[in-house]
C-alpha cells in the first residue's frame, strides 16, 4: 500500500504539470503549421495573431501539388527511402550475423567496425571516394555511402546473439551452412528487429539533405528536403516551384510564401508522422534492441 504525504503528492502534481506543459510547447509549432497552411491569403495577411483559420482553404496545397518540381522530389525521395532502407537492411543484417559467428579474423573485423566510431576520414576524402567510384550525380550516391550505420550494425549483432544457440546448432547438425541458417532461421525470427531498423534507416533516407546537395548536380534529382529548404529557408518559392508559379502568375493568384512554406513542411513531415507510431511501439516500452549495459 502506498502512503504518499501531501508534499509528495503536490510534488508529483507539479512534476506532471510541468511535463505536460513542456509537451504542449513542443507540439505547438506543429499546430501552428497546420493552421497557417490551411489559411487563405487574406486571413494570413490581415490578422496579427492567427490561431485558428477563419476559412479553411487548400490554396497552398493545390499550388504545391501543381508544381512538377515538388512532385518529382517526392518521387525521388520515395525511391531512395525504399531502396535505401532495403539495401541498408540487407547489408547490415548479413554483416551483423556474420560477425556473430566464430570465424578467422573475427576480432579484427570487429575492430574495423568499432574504430569507425572514434575516427572518421573526413568530408573531402569521402567525397573524392564517392567521385572515384562513379556515384556522383546518381541516386546511388545517397544510398551506398551510407549503407551501414555502425551503431545499427553493433546493436543488430547484439540482437542476433540473443537468439538461442540451440536453434543454430540443431540446424548445423542437420547439415545447414551459415547462409541457410541466416535465411531460414535468423531472418524469420528477427522480423520485429528488422522492421524497426528498416524504419530507422528509412527515416534517415527520407530526411536526406546534405548528401543530396553534395553529390547531386542536377536539380531534378533533388530530394524533398532540398526543395523544402529552397522554399522555406531561402524564401524562394517562386523559382523553386517555377512551374506552378508561372501558372499562378497568369491567374494572379499565388498564395503567400509563408503558407506555401508551411504546407510544404507539413507534406514533408507527414510520412514521418505516419510511421512514427510503429517506431514508438519498439522503444516506448523501454526495450532497447540488444542489451543495454548498466
Amino acid at each position, binding site marked *: 500500500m502506498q502512503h504518499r504525504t501531501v508534499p509528495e503528492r503536490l*510534488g508529483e502534481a507539479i512534476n*506532471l504539470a*510541468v*511535463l505536460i506543459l513542456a509537451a504542449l510547447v*513542443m507540439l505547438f509549432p506543429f499546430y*501552428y503549421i497546420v493552421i497557417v497552411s490551411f489559411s487563405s491569403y487574406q486571413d494570413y495577411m490581415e490578422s*496579427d*495573431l492567427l490561431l485558428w483559420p477563419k476559412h479553411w482553404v487548400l490554396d497552398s496545397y493545390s499550388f504545391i501539388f501543381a508544381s512538377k518540381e515538388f512532385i518529382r522530389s517526392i518521387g525521388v525521395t520515395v525511391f531512395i527511402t525504399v531502396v535505401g532502407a532495403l539495401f541498408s537492411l540487407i*547489408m547490415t543484417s548479413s*554483416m551483423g550475423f*556474420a560477425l556473430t*559467428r566464430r*570465424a*578467422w579474423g573475427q576480432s579484427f*573485423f570487429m575492430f*574495423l*567496425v568499432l574504430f*569507425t*566510431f572514434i*575516427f572518421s*576520414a*573526413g*568530408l*573531402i576524402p569521402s567525397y*573524392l571516394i*564517392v567521385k572515384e*567510384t562513379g556515384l556522383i550525380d546518381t541516386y546511388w550516391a545517397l544510398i551506398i*555511402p551510407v549503407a*551501414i550505420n555502425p*551503431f545499427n*550494425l553493433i546493436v543488430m549483432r*547484439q540482437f542476433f*546473439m*540473443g*537468439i*538461442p*544457440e*540451440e536453434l543454430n546448432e540443431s540446424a548445423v547438425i542437420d547439415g545447414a*551452412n551459415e547462409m541457410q541458417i541466416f535465411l531460414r532461421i535468423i531472418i524469420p525470427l528477427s522480423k520485429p528487429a528488422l522492421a524497426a531498423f528498416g524504419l530507422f534507416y528509412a*527515416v534517415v533516407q*527520407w*530526411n536526406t*539533405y*546534405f548528401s543530396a546537395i*553534395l553529390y547531386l548536380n542536377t536539380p531534378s534529382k533533388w530530394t524533398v528536403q532540398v526543395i523544402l*529548404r529552397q522554399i*522555406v*529557408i531561402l524564401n524562394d518559392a517562386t523559382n523553386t516551384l517555377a512551374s506552378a508559379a508561372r501558372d499562378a502568375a497568369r491567374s494572379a493568384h499565388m498564395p503567400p510564401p*509563408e503558407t506555401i512554406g508551411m504546407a*510544404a513542411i507539413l507534406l*514533408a*513531415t507527414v510520412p514521418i508522422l505516419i510511421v512514427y507510431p510503429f*517506431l*514508438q511501439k519498439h*522503444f516506448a516500452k*523501454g526495450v*532497447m534492441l540488444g*542489451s*543495454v549495459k*548498466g
Partner: protein
Amino acid sequence: MTAPIMPDATTAQASPQAAPRQPIRTGKPLSSRLWRERYIFLLLLPGLVYFLVYKYVPMLGNIIAFQDFSPFRGFLHSEWVGFRHFERIFEDAEVVRVIWNTLYLAFLQIVFSFPIPIVLSLMLNEVRQSRFKYFIQSVVYLPHFLSWVVIIGIITIFLKSEGLVNELLHLVFGMEPISFMQEPGWFMPLIVLEVIWKESGWGTVLFLAALAGVNPALYEAARVDGASRLRQIWHITLPAIRSTIVILLILQLGHVLDSGFEQIFLMLNPFTMDVGNVLDTFVYFKGIQQSDFSFGTAVGLFKGIVGLILILGANRLSKKIGEDGLF
C-alpha cells in the same frame, strides 16, 4: 547523438553460449578453415567491402593534406608540400576564429544541452500514470525523427520579422521586431535551443532504460527509513544513472570538435557566418565549394586526429575516476 553501446560478452543473453567463443585451434591449415567458414565470409563480404571502400580508403585519402592536390593530376602526380597546410591552420585568422566558434559551441552544448535529458528522464521516472508518461514520451521523442530542414524551416517562419514571435513580443512588450536569424548574437543560443528541442526527448531513452532496472525494493527501504522523495532521487535514482551520465559525458568531450554540420549549415547566412562557422562547415566551404581540396583535407584531418586524442583521453579519464571506460 546516441551513444554507441559496446557489446560485451558478459551482458545478459537469452540463453547460455550465445556469445562468440574463442577460435578453435584444430591444427588444420588455415586454408581449410577458411573454406569451412566460406559462407560466413560470403555474408561478411558486402559489408566488409563497404567499410573498406567508404570508410577506410578515405582515411588513406587524407594523404592529399600533404600535397597540393589537383583533381586533374590525381594522387600520384600532385606536388608534395609537407606540413604547409597545417602551418596555415594556426596562422590563418579565419581558421582560428572557426576553431574558437567550434569550442564555444561545444561548451554551450555541454553546459545547457547535456543536462536536459537527465532532468527530463528523472521527471518522467516520477510520473505514475502510465497514460501520461506514454503521451509525454511520444511527444518528446518525435522531433528526433524530423529533419533539420523541417525544424529550421519552422524556426525561420516563426522568427520572421512579421512572424509569430515578433508579433507576440510587440503585443506583450511593445518591442520592435528582432531579426533573430540575422542577428549574430542570437545564432549560438538558437542552435542550442534547437538541439534541446530536437534531441532532449530521445536522449532520455538511455537514462530511462537504466532507471527501469533499479530495484523497487530500494525505494521501499528508503521510504521505510523516512526518506523524502527528493532524498530518494538523490541517493537511489541518480547513482543508478551515474555510469551512463559519465560515459555520455566522455563521448561529448570526445566529440567537442564535431558540431552538427547540417544544422549549422542550414542556419548560416552571410550575417552570421563570422560567429557561426565551425570546423565542419569551414571544411565544406573551403574544401568543396572553393575547391581548396588540400587545405580542407588538412583541417579535416587535424580535426579527426584531435578528436581521436580527445576520446582516448576522456576514456582514460573515466577509468581513472573509477567508471568503466567505453573500451
